[in-house]
């Protein structure tokens, strides 16, 4: 029998993990990427990778608590069985990466060192210098190179995935792709296709993402009928350096080590930050959140920084929005010992030494919790059957999704350092299911399918390419269209959302989409034409952009990264104790009603006219019952107590 052929689209952590595991299982892997896989976006991750570990265990941590933190952080929007499987695998994944040579930081005794990240009390985060993502990526890249040398993996680097080849029954039988240098368009047969193409920050113009994160591959399978889930959940990181080309992340650890966030009380005070006296500074996080100060969680910090600039007009600069993140008051030796890597990024790109002067920062789009809808098979104990072909499979038979472009693990908000582990886990775990799927394929392998099927799809994409090349000169400039799309999406669909604005933006995005269809390339050549590739990717941003807007518009609540002030429940503000109690009970009633309505996965599919249609799917919350995320809510303690009593009453009621 011919060997099983699997196509992996994307060579970040997820795609590489899948490729090496599939090669080990003796599949014939084709690995495709826009860039050399070693240059994939995963290289950007700085902070680290989470798992429960020997040390945290002794302080009371467990896989179950990692599960709990992840679900709580995600506002309980995840199906719980896949997350359970993930956290139980996490320690083994770190061990494996350790064996593969990842240069994890060490303790003096030679064990792996860990640090603490947001959303937990435990030091769960292993790290490798200031470039954990890069180090993990390289270890997997090296393994895949080894399989390439032995003939198990064929790389298609610098190729653009254009679309699926599906047989008459809808099964994926391969793809069509284009070589970005020769511009050759080719059909590549495969028995299963795995999409591992990462996030879609490009839709927001500038973000913390890399240039290749346009969402193009995902959009293309979405347009072919795959479902897309929880699009409206987009994580915004509070502290990034505004740049002309990219918004570069400044890690949470700057605040962890004592960095303070402030703005001058006098709007746009022109003096250099160091010359502004203490009492003329507004340390707004410390003032408003005395308990947590600068270390409030990501979504809260983001919202406050945004408000201080947008609502209160206190941005440091007039022309663009930013606040100060200041470490200049801290001792230099400490900064050099603990934050050198991060401060160097600022210095390198801004040409200013943050040890001497406050940094200018602003929130930036960072991560997409939403992604391709995919399946799993639950077992009785609450975890997964990883041999099931349903594992990570989308609704299109033979199409799988892993990594940042799947939606399964982070719910409404991702915890720091949980993404890298989820990418590697989904990559490793998809392999068994893919093999089971291919083994059970009726009507033979892709290699035995009719050549006409592949030729027809190839011609369709060739025609699309030719159509773009031949467009009239008078069309709009694609770079300006992208800039406007990005600005609009960033304005209405990130930190704070209002229905009126979302609705208006939807109309404007429709118009921009029309413009993008007429965008003329300024390069008509047929050799390394990046311009045409850009125009095509731009066009494909719109179905996802509209799905994000529509999902956000429909979801009338606040959950995780999705914040609509109109629907924010009021806290407990009465003085009278009985009244306070009543308010707390009312709060809990509202919480439960809201969950009954909105604790649901948004599942979008495109109809015939390309309009996203939304459906809502129950979330499997069978392992840990959802509870309110009460951060910063007035009277939170009381609400927590009232809610706990309710749950206890119910538990007692259930007992015979």
């Amino acid at each position, binding site marked *: 029998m011919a060997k099983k052929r699997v196509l992996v689209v994307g060579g970040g952590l997820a795609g590489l993990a899948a490729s090496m595991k599939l090669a*080990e299982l003796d599949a014939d892997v084709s690995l495709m990427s826009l860039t*050399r896989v070693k240059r994939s976006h995963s290289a950007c991750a700085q902070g680290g990778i989470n798992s429960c570990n020997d040390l945290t265990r002794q302080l009371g941590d467990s896989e179950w608590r990692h599960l709990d933190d992840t679900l709580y952080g995600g506002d309980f929007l995840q199906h719980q069985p896949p997350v359970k499987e993930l956290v139980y695998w996490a320690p083994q994944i770190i061990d494996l990466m350790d064996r593969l040579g990842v240069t994890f930081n*060490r303790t003096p005794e030679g064990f792996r060192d860990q640090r603490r990240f947001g959303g937990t009390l435990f030091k769960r985060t292993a790290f490798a210098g200031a470039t954990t993502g890069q180090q993990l990526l390289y270890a997997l890249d090296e393994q895949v190179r080894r399989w390439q040398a032995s003939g198990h993996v064929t790389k298609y680097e610098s190729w653009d995935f254009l679309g699926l080849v599906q047989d008459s029954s809808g099964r994926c039988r391969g793809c069509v792709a284009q070589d970005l240098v020769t511009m050759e368009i080719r059909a590549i047969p495969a028995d299963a296709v795995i999409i591992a193409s990462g996030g879609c920050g490009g839709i927001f113009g500038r973000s913390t993402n890399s*240039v290749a994160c346009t969402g193009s591959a995902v959009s293309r399978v979405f347009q072919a009928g795959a479902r897309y889930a929880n699009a409206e959940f987009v994580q915004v990181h509070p502290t990034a350096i505004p740049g002309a*080309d990219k918004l570069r992340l400044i890690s949470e650890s700057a605040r962890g080590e004592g960095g303070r966030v402030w703005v001058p009380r006098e709007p746009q005070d022109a003096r250099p930050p160091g010359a502004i006296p203490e009492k003329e500074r507004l340390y707004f996080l410390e003032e408003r959140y005395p308990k947590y100060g600068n270390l409030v969680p990501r979504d809260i910090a983001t919202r406050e920084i945004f408000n201080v600039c947008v609502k209160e007009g206190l941005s440091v600069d007039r022309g663009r929005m930013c606040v100060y993140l200041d470490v200049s008051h801290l001792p230099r030796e400490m900064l050099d010992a603990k934050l050198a890597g991060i401060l160097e990024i600022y210095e390198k790109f801004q*040409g200013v030494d943050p040890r001497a002067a406050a940094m200018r920062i602003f929130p930036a789009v960072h991560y997409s919790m939403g992604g391709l809808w995919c399946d799993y098979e639950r077992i009785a104990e609450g975890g997964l059957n990883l041999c099931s072909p349903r594992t990570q499979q989308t609704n299109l038979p033979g199409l799988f999704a892993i990594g940042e472009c799947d939606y399964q693990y982070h719910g409404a908000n991702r915890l720091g350092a949980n993404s890298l582990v989820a990418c590697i886990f989904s990559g490793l775990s998809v392999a068994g299911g893919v093999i089971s799927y291919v083994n059970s394929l009726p009507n033979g392998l892709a290699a035995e399918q009719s050549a006409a099927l592949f030729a027809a799809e190839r011609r369709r994409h060739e025609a699309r390419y030719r159509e773009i090349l031949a467009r009239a000169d008078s069309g709009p400039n694609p*770079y300006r269209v992208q800039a406007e799309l990005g600005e609009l999406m960033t304005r209405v669909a990130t930190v704070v959302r209002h229905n009126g604005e979302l609705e208006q933006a939807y109309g404007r995005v429709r118009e921009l989409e029309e413009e993008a269809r007429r965008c003329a390339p300024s390069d008509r050549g047929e050799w390394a034409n990046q311009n045409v590739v850009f125009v095509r990717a731009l066009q494909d941003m719109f179905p996802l952009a509209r799905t994000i807007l529509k999902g956000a518009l429909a979801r009338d609540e606040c959950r995780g990264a999705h914040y609509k002030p109109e629907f924010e429940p009021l806290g407990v503000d009465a003085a009278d104790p009985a009244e306070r109690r009543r308010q707390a009970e009312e709060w809990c009633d509202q919480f439960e009603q809201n969950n009954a309505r909105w604790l649901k996965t948004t599942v979008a599919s495109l109809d015939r006219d390309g309009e996203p249609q939304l459906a809502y799917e129950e979330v499997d919350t069978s392992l840990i019952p959802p509870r309110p995320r009460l951060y910063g809510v007035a009277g939170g303690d009381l609400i927590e107590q009232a809610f706990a009593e309710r749950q206890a009453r119910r538990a007692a009621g259930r007992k015979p």
Partner: protein
Amino acid sequence: MNAGARAEGGARSFIVRVLRQDRPGSEAYWESHSVVHEPDMNVISVLQRIAEQARTVEGKRVAPVVWECNCLEEVCGACTMIINGRVRQACTALVDRLLEERPGAIELRPMTKFPVLRDLLVDRTRIFAALHKVKAWVPVDSYHHMGPGPRRSQDEQQMAYHYSKCMSCGCCLEACPQFLKIELTRGRDESAEAFRARCFAAYDRSFMGAHAIAQVELFNQNPIGKMSARERLDALTSEGGIQNCGNAQNCVKVCPKDIPLTRAIALAGRHATLHALRNWFDR
């Protein structure tokens, strides 16, 4: 709209001279673009503006300049080019600094040691071929659960981390007098696969460069990698190996990741000598 004549709100513009080439083997030519100055610009954003304008300073419509990039924060190694005569990453090349160094104009050229595909885009396959050659990986038995990796001291970790930050950007190769360009052309009837094999064979025979030598050190110091150290030393001492290094030490000066290349070369040299002796005694 003529970008060269544009001076919106009195914004300064500056000239960017780019050495362009349409295809492999075709004639290279200089072209000038005018770009309006913005705060926080780097060479990537300059190239983005050039793509948007797609017009030369004379107002002639041209195709956007082609170049490679991804991370935009100097961790992916994609955007190497020669900027004002110096090989470096475009994403960390800040416009204000460049204009201080050389007022009025910025000059961009493709790397000279690799075949130009188009404009600033070059074919760096040879870098990755060297990683194949030296078997730059940890040869684990399987991906099953076998417990944690070996314990390592902080010093070992630090040293390994220095080497493992290599992002295969090629700066060290561009600067190296011993690393010479290899440019083959695909024959009329030659398949892509056959052409690739021919390139790999040619790369294999010529100098691997400092980055690959450092990778040998990285993996030969890894507790598991060590077990197959002899294979890597064979590669290191074969044709195209460390004996080509003339110790000019240009490489270490241009490495954007400050990888201790001269240290790696010195150590690898010592290990290669021991290896040769051992092979000689084993005979």
